[in-house]
């Protein structure tokens, strides 16, 4: 048990390092938008989704209607539906209670690290839960700290803004194990860029992932069929 906990914590550091400056800057914006520290804490605890929190802070500041804020939040975070589905294969028969707790911490970052670690082995649901909560704690602390002292921190110190991008690049490289997967990644990149330029909001993540995974699956099945036809 202690081992699972330690593994989870030591895998979480790039996420925590990346969350800290983002959380601080969200806190600064929230403070400028008139949010109190407890309100920032309430948002980070109840919502825990970086991108949508930035949007919500801006919308609250601009006096948007609650309905508009909630529906935007829903759209922005709908991509987790895909991540939750992909993770489900690693939790066969696990209790609903555990999954309900684990799902709370599902973010782009925790998804990427947990998925990679599950595939590499030496990783179980307790390590994954630890990682989620380490990231969550960092997020709550850094956003609230941002409300108090964000303006004192110099922006961009030591390239820390690149921590999450660097982590995503590395995790992507770890995934590239077959020609089909590489093709899927390239299709996703092309679709994502086009969808990012043409579609509003962050629909590009869902659109590109669904198209690329579907194309990858079709390609895989076609190649398999041809393989059996040749034999």
């Amino acid at each position, binding site marked *: 048990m202690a081992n699972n906990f330690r593994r989870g914590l030591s895998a979480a550091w790039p996420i925590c390092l990346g969350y800290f400056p983002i959380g601080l800057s969200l806190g600064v914006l929230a403070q400028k938008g008139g949010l109190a520290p407890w309100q920032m804490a309430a948002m980070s605890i109840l919502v825990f989704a970086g991108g949508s929190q930035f949007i919500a802070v801006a919308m609250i500041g601009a006096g948007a209607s*609650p309905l508009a804020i909630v529906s935007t939040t829903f759209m922005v975070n709908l991509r*987790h*539906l895909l991540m939750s589905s992909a993770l489900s294969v690693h939790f066969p028969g696990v209790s609903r209670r555990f999954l309900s707790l684990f799902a709370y911490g599902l973010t*782009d970052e925790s998804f990427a690290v947990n998925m990679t670690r599950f595939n590499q082995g030496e990783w179980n649901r307790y390590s994954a839960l630890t990682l989620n909560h380490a990231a969550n704690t960092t997020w709550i602390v850094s956003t609230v700290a941002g409300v108090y002292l964000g303006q004192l921190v110099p922006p961009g110190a030591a390239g820390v803004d690149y921590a999450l991008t660097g982590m995503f*690049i590395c995790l992507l490289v770890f995934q590239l194990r077959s020609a089909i997967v590489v093709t899927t990644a390239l*299709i996703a990149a092309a679709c994502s860029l086009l969808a990012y330029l043409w579609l509003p909001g962050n629909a590009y993540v869902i659109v590109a*992932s669904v198209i690329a995974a579907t194309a990858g699956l079709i390609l895989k099945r076609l190649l398999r069929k041809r393989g059996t036809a040749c034999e």
Partner: protein
Amino acid sequence: MSNRDFLLLMLAMGAVTYLPRMLPLVVLSRRALPAWFAEWLELIPVAILSALITPTLFAHSDPRLFTLSKVELLAAIPTLLCALKTRSLAGTVIIGMLSYWGLGLMK
């Protein structure tokens, strides 16, 4: 906005964020998935990772425009090489940060 309204708004935002995170895990983990769907899900992580990174590297955000001259893209080259060569997450994140920092200073 009153404190009560603010909390209600946060609860509603929390609910619409939480449900898509939770429902597939709870529903799908208790049943055998059809083979094609399992294979499709296997391709989702790589597709999502690639879709998440690409605009960061190849597009400005406001307004959204294609570009090949972002520091993020330049810094991605040593980061990518490090990931391929060392297969180390820690090393890659550090090389990425240092490259981004250094290239940012030069620009």
